[in-house]
């Protein structure tokens, strides 16, 4: 069933409602294997919801969602728990507010899931964790507590924690929005390095348009729970076809 051309993520006709509020309606989206996509759009347009559905953190009311061909939802019917776990194992997610585990050291934040989920030995997990911390420039913080870190450091630890399970797809939900401006750069630098040196598929929700432009293979603009326009960054930013895209861009990026 799986083939090389198979997308990393596939949303087809997805409907998502919270009670009476419809957040996504007939939503279609694909993330190609190895593709880096920036998902942009006004606040409340459903960007986080897309990521949370992919991570199986949300139920949907209709449609199909596949992760590397593994159905999470097939025509509105949820996969069983084992299959959901198998799909989720392909994904890593980084949240706006980090959500580090405050009762665990930085090292334990990184080793917990590999040990429990991937049954890694403690020393093996620690070794890998140190390598990841080195990669995000924080190997000296292995023994620190999360509360001792700055926002930028917390977010870099959160990225390393997600990478520790060796996912094929990374989801980033406004990972710099909660940071003080002087810390945005260090986190974007980690993202840039990841994008350039790995073949992971990445879906990045961001308000950093300049970064999206250089980082992404493709930019997707969504509004009101629908994809309004998608294309290569030069086209979407340089020459948007849709009026709504133009309006949004003129608001977020000063000319």
């Amino acid at each position, binding site marked *: 069933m799986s083939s090389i051309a198979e997308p990393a993520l596939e949303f087809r006709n997805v409907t998502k409602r919270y009670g009476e509020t419809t957040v996504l309606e007939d939503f279609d989206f694909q993330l190609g294997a190895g593709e880096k996509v920036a998902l942009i759009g006004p606040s409340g347009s459903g960007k986080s919801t897309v990521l949370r559905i992919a991570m199986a*953190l949300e139920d949907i009311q209709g449609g199909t969602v596949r992760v590397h061909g593994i159905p999470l939802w097939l025509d509105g019917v949820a996969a069983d728990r084992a299959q959901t776990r198998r799909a989720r194992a392909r994904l890593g997610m980084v949240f706006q507010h980090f959500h580090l585990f405050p009762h665990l050291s930085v090292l334990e934040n990184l080793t917990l899931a590999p040990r429990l989920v991937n049954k890694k030995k403690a020393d093996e997990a620690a070794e890998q964790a140190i390598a990841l911390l080195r990669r995000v420039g924080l190997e000296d913080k292995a023994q620190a507590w999360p509360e001792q870190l700055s926002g930028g450091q917390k977010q870099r630890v959160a990225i390393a924690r997600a990478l520790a399970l060796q996912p094929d797809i990374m989801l980033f939900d406004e990972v710099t929005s909660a940071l003080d401006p002087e810390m945005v750069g260090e986190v974007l630098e980690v993202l840039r390095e990841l994008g350039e040196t790995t073949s992971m598929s990445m879906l990045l929700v961001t308000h950093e348009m300049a970064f999206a432009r250089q980082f992404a293979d493709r930019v997707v603009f969504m509004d009101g729970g629908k994809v309004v326009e998608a294309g290569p960054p030069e086209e979407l930013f340089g020459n948007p076809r849709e009026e709504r895209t133009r309006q949004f861009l003129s608001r977020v990026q000063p000319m």
Partner: protein
Amino acid sequence: MSWDWHYAWSVLPPLLRAFVVTLEASLAGFVLAAILGLVWAVSRMAPVRIVAGTVFWIVEFVRSTPLLIQLYFLYYVLPEYGVVLSPLAIGILALGLHYSCYTAEVYRAGIEAVPTGQWEAARALNLTPRAIWLRIVLPQALPPAVPVLGNYLIAIFKETPLLAAITVMEMLQTAKLIGAESFRYLEPLTITGAVFLLVSLLASFAMRRLEVAHVFHR
């Protein structure tokens, strides 16, 4: 009738032996309340509606009926179903069950104080529900609950005289029997009250120290 030191001295040993029973009942009742309460609190959040609903009503029911009735109920009704336990065991069971419905609330507050982001991050890391509870949620929810649980230990201790109603030889029951034998109630009852006062004060003091230590932890 004036205070008789000689008599007071002579009734002290049996009263202190009974105090050991009081302590046993308090501690065992508390341990049971602490464990059962956690079971209630976690099951109330079970994804299965029937489990969560059933537990909700058990807790509401037990909390809304007096401990004394529950004591009598277990004491007289359990044997009819072939469950024969010592009065002390029944007392411990009743105290544990009754107070578990209060400790459940304490745990619930602790669990609800753990931000939803912690659950989501744990799920995103593919941890199993069991691992999420044991490794992420409870380690954060339990430490703030400890001082409040301590207050329930003191409350349970002060409730143990109720066990006299089902013939448990704790302090009050012993004091009553001594008084009935010698027709002098003043000394045994005063000593009993004084022991409760002393232990409660000491325990409250210790609890406050624990709370302070908790606040300054890390």
